[in-house]
């Protein structure tokens, strides 16, 4: 049994590595074969030919494309993402490792809120199927999914930050406070940081809660039609037990997978919200890097986001096979 699961995990892992390799290759081709010279913004018109050549050599751009590709792969494997063009030549890794935690805090806190509300809401919608509450609730949820997040963020900002001046409007804290945060732990312990988190988290959660809610609702409706649910009714279990212990438990499985996938996709999708709230995360850095034609940084940020998504897709697959014995079994049956 364990051997089956182990093979399954190994197989999935290899597949993820392969997917990542293809993505990285596409990324390389995109950046190197682009019509514009990657150094175009860096190279001044006043540069001499020699200076230009030296610069190309510094970034390894003078070598043949095949060799560049090999070096690029090796560097990625060792997580060496090179130096930025802007940010006075700081290394890409430095910038990204400062951004990543902020993105993760925002993503996790909003997903947590969204899925808690979504799962409970989904159960309620399924239980109250056909009622006024359900109709109003689903319409509201649809509206939150249809409203552009940045617009919702702007509205919330203009009320809470500018009209009523209840919450801060941008960033993770004033420079004087940030100065005192020596470690991530200091940051997390700071009420200032949390005050800055409220609005972006709420905005994101408002958008994100729709998926788990609608998914939970439809899963519940499907599970409630299953024979084993009828059976537990026939067995005289209380309605609460039938709904929560049997139906909701089984309906949760796909939602948990969606949550795992959601972590990956949100990290990539927070781009817009980070820009509205000037949140110093991966997304805002990516946008800036592209605007300033800082290719190493843009490439690094994109790579990091893709890496997280592929990794979370991998985790979601594994999680599902562990949670649902049937999936694990089909993997196992292939081996036994």
């Amino acid at each position: 049994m364990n051997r089956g699961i182990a093979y399954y995990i190994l197989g999935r892992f290899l597949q993820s590595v392969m997917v990542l390799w293809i993505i990285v290759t596409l990324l390389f081709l995109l950046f190197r074969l682009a019509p514009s010279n990657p150094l175009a913004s860096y190279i001044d018109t006043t540069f001499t030919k020699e200076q230009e050549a030296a610069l190309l050599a510094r970034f390894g751009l003078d070598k043949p494309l095949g060799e560049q590709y090999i070096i690029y792969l090796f560097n990625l494997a060792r997580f060496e993402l090179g130096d930025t063009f802007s940010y006075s030549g700081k290394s890409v890794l430095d910038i990204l490792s400062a951004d990543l935690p902020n993105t993760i805090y925002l993503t996790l806190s909003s997903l947590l809120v969204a899925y808690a509300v979504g799962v409970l809401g989904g159960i309620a919608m399924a239980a109250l199927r056909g009622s006024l509450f359900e109709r109003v609730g689903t319409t509201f949820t649809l509206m939150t999914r249809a409203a552009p997040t940045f617009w919702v963020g702007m509205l919330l900002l203009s009320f809470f930050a500018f009209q009523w001046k209840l919450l801060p409007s941008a960033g993770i804290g004033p420079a004087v406070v940030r100065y005192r945060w020596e470690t991530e732990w200091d940051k997390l312990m700071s009420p200032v940081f949390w005050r800055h988190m409220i609005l972006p988290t709420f905005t994101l959660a408002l958008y994100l809660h729709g998926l788990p809610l609608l998914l939970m609702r439809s899963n519940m409706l499907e599970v409630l039609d299953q024979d084993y649910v009828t059976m537990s009714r026939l067995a005289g279990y209380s309605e609460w037990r039938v709904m929560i212990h049997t139906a909701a438990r089984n309906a949760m499985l796909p939602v948990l997978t969606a949550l795992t996938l959601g972590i990956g996709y949100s990290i990539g999708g927070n781009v817009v919200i980070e820009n509205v709230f000037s949140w110093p995360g991966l997304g805002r850095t990516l946008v800036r890097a592209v605007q300033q034609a800082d290719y190493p940084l843009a490439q690094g940020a994109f790579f990091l986001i893709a890496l997280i998504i592929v990794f979370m897709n991998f985790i979601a697959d594994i999680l599902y096979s562990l949670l649902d014995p049937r999936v694990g079994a089909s993997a196992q049956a292939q081996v036994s």
Partner: protein
Amino acid sequence: MSILSIRDLKVDYATQEGTVQAVDGVSLDVDEGQQLGLIGESGCGKTTLLKAIVQVLPRNGRITAGKIMFNGIDMLQLSKTEMRQLRWREIATIPQASMDSLNPVQRVGSQLMKLLRVRGGYDKRAARRRAADLFDLVGLDTERLMHYPHEFSGGMKQRAVIAMALALEPSLLIADEPVTALDVIVQHQILEVLRELEQELNLTVMLITHDISVVAQVCDSVAVMYAGRIVEQAAAEPFFHAPAHPYSLGLQQAFPNLARPRDELVSIEGYPPDLREPPSGCRFAERCPFVQDSCHDIDPRLELVGDNRLAACLRSGEMETLRSQAEDPALWQQVEVAQEPILPPPKSPSITTRGDLGAPPLATASVETPPSPSQWGGVDDDILLEMRDVSKRFKIGGGLAGLLRGDHEQTVYAVNNISFTLRRGESLGLAGESGCGKSTTGKLLVKLLDASDGEILFDGADLAHLEQDDLLNFRRRSQLMFQNPFEALNPRFTLYRSLTEPLIIHGWKDEQQRLGRVIETLDRVNLRPAEVFLDKYPHQLSGGQLQRVVLARALVLHPDFLVADEPVSMLDVSVRAGILNTTRRLARELGLATVYISHDLSLLQYTCDRIAIMYLGEIVEIGPSSGVINNPQHPYTQALIAAVPVPDPTIENPPLRIQEGIPRPTEQFIGCPFAQRCPDVMEACLDIRPPAITDEYSHMAQCHLYGDHRDSPKLKRGAEVTSGNTR
């Protein structure tokens, strides 16, 4: 004293098309220690009755009148909580499709223990002990408590559900179709478990089924339901020997019976009445061969007609005479029935068409058609089809994608080295438990699959090398009839479109000719008047009608060869016989070579000249039907025949000598594939291939018992048998 007493119960379903009176005035008593079998066709209200008793009717269902007394308590007066408390502790229900009644993501043991602890008030330790006892009781290994439902076979799941039903020692057990969809051997064992439990625990059981032989095996009394009413109630023995209602008579005659084979089965023509507007007189009148004028006006009441027997028939006084007449299938075919599609319902019962007697007129729509085959009609003695050492293997997993997905390549040996021949006009039956390769063989025969090894010769040409026109010609000459009529027709096509498709594919350019052929074929399969059916969609027809359309589509190209894969297993007993009779009659008239695939030996005995028994992809026995059924040679065939329930309570099936559970067909055997389960296993069976022994009637069995190794030492069933003989 009666445990359950139902009086004048009426249940309504509100549907968009009107109110359906699903249960209409049912009165029924179940006494303590009694085992009552409730028989009826689908849609007669038996499951609704069950749902009404335990009050789990769907939202649109409503009890409108009557009383349900349980141990002196009026159940309809109970509050929701009181009703809930009653369930399972007093009345345990094994629902239909109980295979899916176990939660797939919880271990079976924890489900059982949860039930004991939450509903039975057991503590953890006691619950564990009780769970183990229960598994013992139903014949399951206690280690199985730790397994998930998907690790159980169908029979094991059914046992587990029975264990759950007995967990709280209910005073009444209601089982809805407990053995439907199980293989005969498993079915036999489940019935045995039920029978033993009945005796051991003095259970009171109400068993709901469409299969009268199941009732004969485990029940001591019988109630027959028709169109929302009880039409007959009696003790089992008198019921089976002398039914007292024409419907019961028909049901009994419609069942193929291994012990008493008959030339033609009785088919109860027509369909149950529309329960939105039930007829004012007897509800069976329209389909009854003994109908009198008064039957249409007077609604017969359920009355005492003898010693402790109830029947609802105006002519119950003459039942003796009727019974003797009922043996004749021709009598039942005379019934005038509406051949209209059942949905939408006929507005009045007057739109009836005279179903004609005897042979149908050939080619009513007379256009003789261009690509007309010469083989249409006339039985030839030469060989049409030959299988030579045919094998079919499937690979699961493997390949680059499989490697990446973590799948390992595995080979399933679905069909192993089988050989047989089929003459023109001959019919051959393929039987065996599910997974024995009979359906794969069927697909190979019509080239839905290609053989991995060996040759399939059709009129001398190897199917593997057919190309272009030859392939198209083969496609015209061989056809397949499917198990599930509800899936066999494109739901988006009208029947005309479905039937005309094969003609279009084979280049019939003239619309009028196609129409003529379609009408002619519909007429042949007794869908008359054919014109009525042309514009209908599949969902507007009943299962029996649909299966006739499927037959018509198979015949519309005038093929020479037909494979019928479980042609009636999805249909009600009363219509089964009609389909079988029509198929058999047409095959004879048209000189069609037919291969029937079925798990039901009595059906094959009825329809086939020869029968082949398959086990793990091999043919272990083949021969003339009467020989295989009456004089089975192979131990597996003997077991299969012994497992078929007999619709007669006085004949008890012999105890089975083999266990359920076919090994996975992923192994190849050096010796006999059946050695692992064989009750007569010998040393030679493990590593020497059994020889094919044929007698003078071309009756072949592949078994060491009749070969040179017949004196090989016997083995006790045990560890040494289950290991070691795989390659």
